[in-house]
């Protein structure tokens, strides 16, 4: 919070060159402009309370003098504003009518000294200290100290500082006064940053929300991300932490397949979200502005349909003294909570395996046959099955079988996995920032380190540096330049082998080592034992497999370098016309190397595939698999704009800008794969790729696909991709204000892109917006109601767009080349990758917004209510089309979608005393999304509906479900009602869409946050709750009801139907034999999974964060040569209240797929802030 205040202070307390003679010529310019001019010409600084001093007051004067008093007298005549000068500081105050001012010399009685600091104990320079009711006053120096002669008796000091609440302190008989100032929230909110301009909130009709940099910084200690910490801060923003869907949504989904995330802007230029998250240090953020409606966002044109989030970074302060600040944090995440996954443990799994063992259907001869098989199922018999078959064949006794099974059950795959493959995760962050400056130059510099240890022994180290410099060159030219640099290094471990996606086997008892730590050979879990043996006999290749040692050997490393350079130039032609130019270039280069050494299982098994039955090996005889990847992104933006800011007479003011912008964004990647590569010598061994990709290894010793007659190896060892977006835009906007009460805004923008080629017929048409705001509290009839500080009424209308990706569609058939060994001799082959569609147009979203801003009781109650209606036409998405056309899906403009709702945010300061304060806030958003119309209606068969996430007449994220009719009492099979209400047990019998009713959406219509904070002296405690309500999820249920038990099983399977009568107790279907042709997976697992009984409420309330902060007494801090020290602790996700009743945390879940995902226990963070 403090940083922001200082920033605003810098804006007001302007810089000046040392020149003795000051000249002011003003004819209707605002006081603010004049102050700026005086400051620029001298080294005087101004301090005033911007609540009582109206800096927009118009000045008419023409004076040149070397005497500052002469200048001020001339400037301030007829304004009702008085001044006092102490040293080089000038304090402004409002003169009381008829009052006879005392001068400091007249009322000399005693000297009172004091210090002014902010809440964190940081001295405030330039605070105005006035004796109430007089014009006697002074200004604090750079250490916050001040001294003032006061007349005898009790006086009241009125202490003011820009951005802070003005306070009155009765001095009594004290000679020394310590003044602690609190931020004035209302004032902070008065400026909105759109990325193109900084506007007075009072004059802008858009729907904005502003989050201070300090808030982002405090919350990001736990998340490490500037974006995640925005959750819960503003109404209308939905942060989705679940395993599927868009992470950040503003006011709902406006698109199905195009971009649904908002546009992220940093210092006036769009930035990719992922890069932003890595590159921008949360400590460097000055403020974040959300542009939610059309007038706010449409200035960003065709990319702004989903709202815009504008980040401003910090600039230096011209304090002449360099201030240094350190922030550090440590976050403990530990291991994921595996019990949440709800899988059977080893004992229960083996008990269940005994129950369903079926040697008649799965005959030993069949499951061990090595001649053929399917690719997914090598003929493998797992240890628990082997014992069951042995007993069945009479090779071992029941006691022996059970003893061996118990031994298996005593081992835990998970314990072993956590021990050998996982690490307790933590995050640490350290950043140091410096800022300072002189009259003509100010800078801000920061460096940051972030270390992250993931849960799978993956590590990342990130180093960031940021520098920003502002230069005043003459009184008409300002330059600002900033540079970010990022280096990050990540190391991780690779999965075992291409076919075996992870090191994890799929059986709960499959530990990697015995109790004394001797590793097991796990090859039998992946390959047939006879195959392993014969490969070894013929080729000498050892296919034994020790996952733990492979895990250590097979590593991947990636290095990311990124820079961003941003240069701004501002030229004042006249006092009302300014040219602003901005240029930004950013580039990132990510290189990654992954390596499987020669002795890894991946390389050994591939060598086995590359061996003939006679033992001839075709793959390199040494060296491993090496993948070298590069991904590159460059972007640049060039912007030129003219802005006008002029007041006509006393009542009309106009603010306008017009500009043009070029924006290019290019991303690309390259990847090279080499076999036989040696990391040390950096050489690889050549081999015959053409042969291996055409004829192949024939006949193979170990077929890649069981039963195939030749093993063929993909020849594509080099791949490259590239996408470039270019936009050329022309834009203008204007705001007119009458009597400071009524403002009108309008904007227009034309975007042209390279996406569809430059054919004008497919380019986006101009978009525009208009809005009005009424500052009702400034009306004379409102003067009576003095408890209302602010009452603004806003209304806006406008359009924004959404463009498709290049190559996705357009008026031309797009072809892509393909190489195939079968015709590589003849040249390139081409396929039509995207069919021509000249009807395709951009998505367009129309937004109507009405809002009220209300502040009362001296800022103690602050409310904003917005009601909006967004309507998107020409939704772009891939939809099924008539296969007769030659394509089964194409990108089309498929329909229209609406988002209607309201946002309410209330901030209340419930208790405010000098030592204690209690604040509370509530953000509430309701968004009703609906796919209003579909231009193309795909077939609405029941099984298709279960898979679609959108359907006409329903919100996006649709969940349809069968109507459950209970289990069949005869055999425990799933049954549902068909369209006629008859009970059926086959999915094929459910023929009509009416049999699968709509059950809800996975996107929450109600969401928001609430929180409270208590400050008691130096201690503060805050908590933040987030909630999402009104949406649904599919329950996580068991999916396997047949076949051998070769995978993890869901706990539910234990409660399945076993004997007639169970249907009264359970809905979980019975196990059945795969040989039964009257039933299949769709009919049992499918009907159950997709039944209405398994659609549950996804609503939840989470205690996202509890945080405690303590500011050390300044006395202590100064003893160790610091200006202030704060310590804090936070706990995130301490408590979850979820409505599903199944222990599902909707944030660790795929709502539509109905599957749990990794969940961590509450996370603890400790952080410290030190100011030097």
């Amino acid at each position, binding site marked *: 919070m403090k940083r922001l205040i200082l920033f605003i202070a810098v804006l007001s307390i302007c810089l000046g060159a040392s020149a003795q003679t000051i000249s002011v010529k003003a004819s209707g310019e605002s006081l603010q402009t004049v102050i700026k001019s005086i400051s620029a010409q001298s080294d005087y600084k101004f301090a005033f309370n911007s609540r009582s001093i109206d800096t927009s007051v118009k000045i008419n004067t023409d004076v040149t003098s070397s005497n500052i008093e002469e200048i001020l007298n001339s400037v301030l005549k007829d304004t009702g504003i008085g001044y006092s000068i102490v040293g080089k500081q000038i304090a402004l105050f409002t003169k009381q009518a008829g009052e006879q001012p005392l001068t400091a010399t007249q009322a000399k009685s005693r000297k009172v000294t004091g210090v002014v600091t902010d809440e964190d104990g940081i001295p405030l320079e330039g605070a105005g200290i006035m004796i109430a009711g007089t014009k006697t006053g002074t200004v604090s120096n750079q250490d916050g100290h001040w001294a003032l002669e006061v007349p005898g008796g009790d006086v009241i000091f009125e202490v003011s500082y820009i951005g802070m609440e003005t306070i009155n302190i009765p001095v009594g008989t004290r000679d020394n006064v310590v003044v602690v100032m609190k931020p004035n929230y209302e004032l902070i909110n008065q400026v909105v940053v759109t990325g193109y301009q900084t506007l007075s909130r009072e004059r802008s009709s858009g729907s904005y929300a502003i989050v201070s940099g300090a808030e982002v910084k405090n919350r990001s200690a736990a998340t490490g991300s500037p974006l995640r910490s925005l959750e819960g801060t503003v109404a209308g923003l939905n942060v989705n932490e679940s395993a599927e869907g868009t992470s950040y949504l503003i006011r709902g989904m406006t698109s199905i397949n195009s971009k649904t995330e908002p546009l992220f802007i940093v210092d006036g230029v769009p930035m990719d979200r992922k890069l932003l998250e890595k590159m921008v240090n949360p400590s460097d953020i000055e403020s974040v502005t959300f542009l939610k409606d059309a007038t706010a966002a449409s200035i960003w044109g065709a990319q702004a349909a989903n709202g815009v989030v504008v980040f401003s970074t910090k600039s230096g302060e011209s304090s002449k003294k360099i201030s240094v600040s350190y922030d550090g944090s440590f976050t403990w995440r530990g291991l994921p909570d595996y019990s949440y996954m709800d899988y059977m443990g080893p004992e229960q799994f083996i008990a269940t395996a005994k129950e369903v063992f079926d040697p008649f259907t799965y005959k030993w001869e*069949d499951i061990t046959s090595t001649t053929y098989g399917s690719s997914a199922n090598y003929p493998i018999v797992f240890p628990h099955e082997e014992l069951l078959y042995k007993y069945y064949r009479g090779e071992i006794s029941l006691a022996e079988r059970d003893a061996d099974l118990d031994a298996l059950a005593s081992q835990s795959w998970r314990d072993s996995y956590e021990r050998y493959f996982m690490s307790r995760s933590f995050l640490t962050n350290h950043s140091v920032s410096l800022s300072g400056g002189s009259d003509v130059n100010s800078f801000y510099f920061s460096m940051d380190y972030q270390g992250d240890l993931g849960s799978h022994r993956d590590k990342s180290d990130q180093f960031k540096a940021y520098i920003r410099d502002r230069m005043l060159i003459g009184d008409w030219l300002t330059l600002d330049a900033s540079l970010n640099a990022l280096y990050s290094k990540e190391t991780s471990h690779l999965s075992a082998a291409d076919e075996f996606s992870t090191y994890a086997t799929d059986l709960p008892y499959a530990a990697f080592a015995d109790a004394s730590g001797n590793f097991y050979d796990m090859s039998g879990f992946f390959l047939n034992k006879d195959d392993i043996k014969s490969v070894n006999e013929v080729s000498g290749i050892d296919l034994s497999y020790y996952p733990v040692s492979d895990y250590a050997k097979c590593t991947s490393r990636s290095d990311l370098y990124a820079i961003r350079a941003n240069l701004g130039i501002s030229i004042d032609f006249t006092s009302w016309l300014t040219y602003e130019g901005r240029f930004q270039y950013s580039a990132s280069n990510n290189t990654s190397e992954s390596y499987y050494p020669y002795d890894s299982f991946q390389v050994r098994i591939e060598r086995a595939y590359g061996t003939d039955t006679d033992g001839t090996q075709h793959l390199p005889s040494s060296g491993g698999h090496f993948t070298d990847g590069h991904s590159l992104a460059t972007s640049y933006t060039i912007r030129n704009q003219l802005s006008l800011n002029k007041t006509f007479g006393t009542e009309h003011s106009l603010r306008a800008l017009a500009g043009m912008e070029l924006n290019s964004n290019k991303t690309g990647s390259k990847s090279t794969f080499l076999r036989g590569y040696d990391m040390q010598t950096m050489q690889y061994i050549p081999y015959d790729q053409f042969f291996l990709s055409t004829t192949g290894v024939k006949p193979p010793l170990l077929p890649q696909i069981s039963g195939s007659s030749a093993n063929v190896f993909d020849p594509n060892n080099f791949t490259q991709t590239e996408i470039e977006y270019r936009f050329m835009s022309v834009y203008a906007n204007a705001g007119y204000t009458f009597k400071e009460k009524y403002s009108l805004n309008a904007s227009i923008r034309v975007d042209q892109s390279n996406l569809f080629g430059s054919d004008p017929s497919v380019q986006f048409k101009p978009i525009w917006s208009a809005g009005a705001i009424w500052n009702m509290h400034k009306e004379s009839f409102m003067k009576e109601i003095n408890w209302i500080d602010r009452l603004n009424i806003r209304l806006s209308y406008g359009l924004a767009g959404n463009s498709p990706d290049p190559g996705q569609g357009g008026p031309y058939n797009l072809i892509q080349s393909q190489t195939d060994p079968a015709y590589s001799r003849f*040249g390139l*082959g081409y396929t*039509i990758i995207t069919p021509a569609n000249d009807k395709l147009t951009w998505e367009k979203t129309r937004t109507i917004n009405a809002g009220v801003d209300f502040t009362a009781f001296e800022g103690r109650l602050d409310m904003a209510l917005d009601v909006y209606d967004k309507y998107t036409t020409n939704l772009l998405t891939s939809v099924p089309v*008539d*296969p*007769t*056309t030659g394509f089964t899906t194409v990108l089309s403009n498929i329909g229209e979608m609406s988002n209607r709702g309201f946002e309410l945010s209330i901030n209340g300061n419930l208790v405010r005393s000098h030592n204690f304060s209690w604040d509370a806030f509530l953000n509430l958003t309701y968004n009703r999304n609906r796919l209003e119309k579909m231009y193309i209606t795909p077939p609405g068969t029941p099984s298709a509906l279960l898979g679609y996430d959108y359907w006409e007449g329903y919100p996006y994220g649709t969940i349809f479900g069968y109507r459950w009719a209970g289990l069949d009492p005869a055999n425990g099979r799933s049954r549902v009602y068909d369209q006629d209400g008859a009970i059926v047990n086959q999915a094929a019998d459910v023929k009509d869409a009416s049999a699968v009713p709509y059950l809800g959406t996975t996107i929450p219509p109600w969401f928001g946050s609430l929180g409270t904070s208590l400050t008691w002296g130096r201690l503060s405690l805050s908590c933040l709750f987030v909630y999402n309500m009104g949406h649904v999820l599919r329950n996580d249920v068991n999916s396997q009801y047949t076949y051998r038990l070769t995978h993890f099983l869901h706990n539910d399977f234990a409660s399945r139907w076993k004997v007639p009568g169970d249907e009264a107790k359970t809905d979980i279907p019975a196990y059945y034999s*795969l040989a039964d042709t009257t039933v299949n997976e769709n009919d049992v697992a499918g009907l159950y999974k997709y039944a209405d009984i398994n659609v549950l409420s996804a609503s939840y309330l989470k205690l996202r964060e509890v945080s405690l902060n303590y500011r050390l007494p300044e006395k202590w801090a100064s003893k160790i040569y610091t200006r202030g020290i704060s310590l804090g602790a936070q706990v995130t996700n301490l408590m979850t209240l979820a409505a599903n009743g199944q222990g599902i945390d909707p944030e660790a879940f795929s709502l539509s797929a109905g599957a749990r995902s990794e969940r961590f226990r509450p996370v603890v963070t400790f952080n410290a802030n030190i100011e030097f």
Partner: protein
Amino acid sequence: MKKYIIILFATLIAGTSCTDWLDVKPRGYDIPTTIGQYEGMLYGMELYFMDEVFEYMSFEFTSDADGYKNAWSAMGRAKCNAYKWQKDVFLPDENCGEWNVPTSFLYPLNVIIADVMNAEGATEEKKAAIRAEARMMRAWHHFLMAQFFAPPYNSAIASSSKCIPIITTASTVGAEFPLKTMEEVYDFILTEMEESVELLPEEAEHHLRVFKATGYAMLGKVLWTMGHYQEALPYLETAFTSAKAQGATLLDYNARIKEDGTIDLPSDRTEHPEYLYLMATMSRLMPAVYITYYNQAIFPIKEEVLFNYYKKNDTRLAFLSGVKSEKTAYASFKPGDQYAANIYGMVSNVGIGVPDLYLMYAECLARQKRESEASEVLVQLRRNRMAAADADNIEADLLTAIISERIREFIGFGNLWFDMRRLWNDSDFQYLKDYYTHTDGETTYTLTEDRLYLEIPPIILSWHPEYNN
């Protein structure tokens, strides 16, 4: 003054944006303009028929109760429905390759036909040849669809019977594809082929490209399928001589049979001399892959067919394997071994190969009573398939001998389905109908004339309610 110099400079920077700045083409994609790209689109068309059902309607397959159950769980409902010649083969939203694969070819072919004459960098002759090739292929895919979804050609009903749509526009939006009558469809196919065939190149570089010999063979095959043997004959004759001249010849299996009873075929299909225009189909692999996975053939070949038609030394038996013996039928030829198509050798194909050309040509010659020529062609084929002494010894009735040879050549591949359609009303071959039964081990299903084609699948009907079957 300095101020204005800088302002001027800034304005210059602002004004330097080029008008063609937006015309950058996304890399990795292209809009077809050159002849190389149009020609490359013909190479890019290597698509497989995957997971299709028509092969299972061929008569030579059988099953028992266990085998059928395994087939059902391994391959799914649609293939088993097709095997049982049911009316409703597909579920409401099941995709149907018989419809989707040919139509997916027609889109790029229509693009080539419409635009290739504007291509850059080629002579008019070259462009005309590419266009002719695309038209030939387009007609061929219409012909295939007509075999899958309409009754066999019959001039008596041709003008009234609904057949398939004729697809000549490349469009995914707004195009309509009304069903045309059998007469309209076959007229279209024949006209397109006749207009194109002379413009085709003499020589093909690749088996998916259509050269003159292939073009004539296609034209001949269409007419032959229609039962217009006399009209087919000259085309097949031209194809026969022309193909030979271009090196499309028979592969001598006798020289390639190995001791273990398997056959060594060129694995690179570009080197296989028997290819003319063939699209691979993967379906046949399905029963093959599952043979011993279930330790029994799920759709084995009927023993009565196998033992009636083959002699032990027929090298083509290498393409069948016995489940019990785990050997090919060439190595072990005994009842009870459950022979089914194996995965050695080639995948089965829909199209025209050299053996098919020989047999069609021989059949047309025989039907025109040019019997000595016919038997000479037949014997040439047989000499590449078995020992010469056996090869020369053919059945007395030449026409029957040729059809029997077709059965031997194509058994287990599913291609015999097309002969079953063609010969349904041929009085000479009514005896074949004795074989036209399938069983699931419990019930026996007999093929009827109205099941000689697939109903248009429900997923297509959902887009085209007007295509009511």
